[in-house]
C-alpha cells in the first residue's frame, strides 16, 4: 500500500508477540477512532490495560484518527 490513505499501526512488547507481528498498514476509510483501528486489525478484544498512542503521543480509544497517522498499541510501560 503506497497510497496516502493509510494508517500505520505498531505493536510493542507482549502485545507484539501475542499478535505475531510488529506493524500493520490499513486503509483509513471507515476508521474514525483508535477503537475502530483495533477492530480492523484484530478480532480479539483489546487487553484491558493496553495503552495507545497517535503519532507518538498518548491517546485514548476514543481519540480521532486520520489518514497518515501512526497508531500504536502497547502494554503498560516498565522502563527505568
Amino acid at each position, binding site marked *: 500500500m503506497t497510497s496516502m490513505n493509510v494508517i500505520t499501526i505498531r505493536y510493542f*512488547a507482549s502485545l507484539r508477540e501475542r499478535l505475531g507481528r510488529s506493524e500493520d498498514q490499513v486503509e483509513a476509510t471507515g476508521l474514525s477512532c483508535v477503537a475502530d483501528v483495533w477492530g480492523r486489525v484484530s478480532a480479539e478484544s483489546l487487553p484491558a490495560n493496553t495503552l495507545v498512542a497517535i503519532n507518538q503521543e498518548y491517546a485514548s480509544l476514543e481519540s480521532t484518527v486520520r489518514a497518515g497517522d501512526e497508531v500504536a498499541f502497547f502494554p503498560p510501560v516498565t522502563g527505568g
Partner: protein
Amino acid sequence: MTILIQKEGFDPWRELAAYQETHTSDWAGRYGATAVFIGSLRDFNQGQAVTGMTLEHYPGMTEGYLEKISSEACARWELLDTLVIHRYGPLSLDDPIVLVAVWSAHRDAAFAACRYLIDELKTRAPFWKQETTPGGVRWVEENKP
C-alpha cells in the same frame, strides 16, 4: 538538557564526570547541588531469580517523552541542567539501566526534580522489560515504586 537512549553499556560515574567536565563552563560557580539516580539490573524480581534482561522501546516516542518530562522539570524547578541516559537491548546483571542527574543552585530543587524525572520516566516513557529467569523469559507487567 541532554537525553541519550543507547544500546551500549555505560558507566554512570564516568558519564557524570565527563558531562560535568564538558558542561561546567555553562554553569560555572552557579551549581550548589547535584542529585543523581542510577537504576541497575537486580538479580531477583517477584520472588524469582533474574539472570538477564532485554529492554524494548518505541524509537522516537521514547526520546519525545523524555524531552517532554525534562522540559516539565525545568519549568517547575530552577534547574541549571538535566541529564538522562537509558539503555535498550540486552542487559547483564548489575548493568546500569538508567541514569538521571540534575544540577541546580540548591538541594530542594535538585532532589525534587530528580525524583520527578525518574518517576515520570517510569510511568510515561515507552520502554518494556523482558526478564530472563531460569524458567525462561517473561515480560514485566508493571513497575514497582
